[in-house]
């Protein structure tokens, strides 16, 4: 035993310290790197595939007609349908791996405030997924651009706006996954609920093309995020799509915090 008494250093104690702890935990396991690598590969593959479809669908060589040129950004946005699962897996792992390995007890021992723990995890998840979204967008652009060739356009401002939108979408979906993971504890169960919420349920609602059901589907986070990324004006403005998605993410965090507080660790 050393005789030195340790006191909290003013620099990193408090919320910053909790964020630093979560940051350390995230980067000290290899699965984080594998998840990110998987996301890059899926983005490249999906963007490439969508670009091939877009190029192949365009056969009209008459320059007087609408030749069906698409923006590279729209291809990148389309590829998120699949890529998002690799990214939200990161948000899931941040919390569900703690339940699997039992380290949640260590975490709560270090920081008894469940709300602060979850908030720190959300900060770290967003801080990683947002810039990572830019990287993915860049990868998607680099793959889709050459494949589209003459059928693609990439105006700088528009593409940049699309990539930022993709980043914001991925960050929010990552936080949504985190909150849900905290509430449900199991990665598999959370993933099933996420696939259902982001894809299956809204798709089923849109299938019969009934206005009421379409409106309900528009309220789901994936659809709202889609409207936001596409810069739609109908059925609501793009900003509302962003707010709706953010609302889902916050709701998931609140749910996760309630579960962490109520249930025994």
């Amino acid at each position, binding site marked *: 035993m050393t005789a*030195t008494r340790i006191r909290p250093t003013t620099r*990193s*104690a408090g919320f910053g310290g909790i964020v630093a702890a979560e940051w*350390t935990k995230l980067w000290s396991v290899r699965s984080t790197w594998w998840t990110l690598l998987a996301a890059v590969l899926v983005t490249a593959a999906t963007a490439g595939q969508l670009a091939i479809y877009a190029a192949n669908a365009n056969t009209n060589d008459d320059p007087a007609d609408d030749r069906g040129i698409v923006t590279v950004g729209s291809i990148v946005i389309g590829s998120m349908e699949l890529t998002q699962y690799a990214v939200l897996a990161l948000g899931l792992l941040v919390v569900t791996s703690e339940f699997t390995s039992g380290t949640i007890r260590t975490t709560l021992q270090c920081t008894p405030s469940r709300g602060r723990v979850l908030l720190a995890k959300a900060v770290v998840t967003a801080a990683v997924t947002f810039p990572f979204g830019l990287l993915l967008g860049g990868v998607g652009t680099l793959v889709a651009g050459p494949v589209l060739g003459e059928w693609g356009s990439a105006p700088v401002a528009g593409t940049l706006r699309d990539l930022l939108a993709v980043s914001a979408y991925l960050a929010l979906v990552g936080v949504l996954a985190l909150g849900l993971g905290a509430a449900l504890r199991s990665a598999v169960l959370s993933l099933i609920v996420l696939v259902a919420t982001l894809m299956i349920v809204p798709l089923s609602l849109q299938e019969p093309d009934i206005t009421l059901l379409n409106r309900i589907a528009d309220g789901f986070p994936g659809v709202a995020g889609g409207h936001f990324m596409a810069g739609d004006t109908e059925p609501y403005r793009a900003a509302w799509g962003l707010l709706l998605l953010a609302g889902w993410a916050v709701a998931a965090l609140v749910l996760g915090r309630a579960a962490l507080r*109520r249930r025994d660790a």
Partner: protein
Amino acid sequence: MITLRGLTKRFGRTTAVDALTVDIAPGRVTGFLGPNGAGKSTTMRMILGLDRPTAGEALIGGRAYRDLRHPLFEVGALLDAKAIHPARSGRAHLLAMARSNGIPARRVDEVLATVGLDDRAAAKPGRTLSLGMGQRLGIAAALLGDPPVLMFDEPVNGLDPDGVRWVRQLMRLLAEQGRTVFVSSHLMTEMQLTADQLVVIGRGRLLADAPIAEVIAGSAAAVRVRSPQPDGLATLADRLTAAGAIVEPAGPDELTVTGSTVDRVGDLAYELGVRLHELSPHGASLERAFMELTADSVEYAGVPSPAGETR
């Protein structure tokens, strides 16, 4: 100082911890004993705010764990040696803990050295740690914030004899430094060597809270008497029986007396002028005391009757 006030935990209809009221004082090692499933781990988890008590409260230095801002400076705990991410190194595990409470990174190296984990061992991923190394890592984690209160759940599990001795000395040292040391174990001999005070629970209820010597002395230990005088021995046996003790012949010139004490048997022999070749306490051990204390709880736990758990 750990204070438990009417601490109760129910899971459905099962009462795991039943109105536990105990003070665990600083400056000594308090052993926490009980049969499997007696509620030891649940009690420790409630002290750490991991499980919510159904009723009552657990306080550390007068405050609930969930109210502590930098708890590692108040309480160090080893609950589960295997609670490390399989892919995370022991060092990163400790570093994350340290950062969460604003403990400088160099303290991680200090505690690693204290528990005898070298750089190579600290760099190994959690899944490759042996149980013994996991215990050392858990103890290092408990020492991070140099806290005045320490809790260890089965700390010597998986340690080699050297490690066991080291943990024993560490507990003693921590208590001598004036800290509160609360340690659970199912190893009676280990407790007998380490603890000053004992808290014994069975089926969630407090069975004993006393200095260890008192607990051992309270057990119905036997007294062995040997004498070369068969007649004198017979007289002694009669008098002891008359006094309510149970006397059994243990050999041609030997008696085993239960329900009396060495002092009383000795006095009586002196009074009767019986020459003794041996007068010794027999079987007085913590193990025996423990068995007696928890006999009821164990008996119930072993009965698979459907009515067993309902009350």
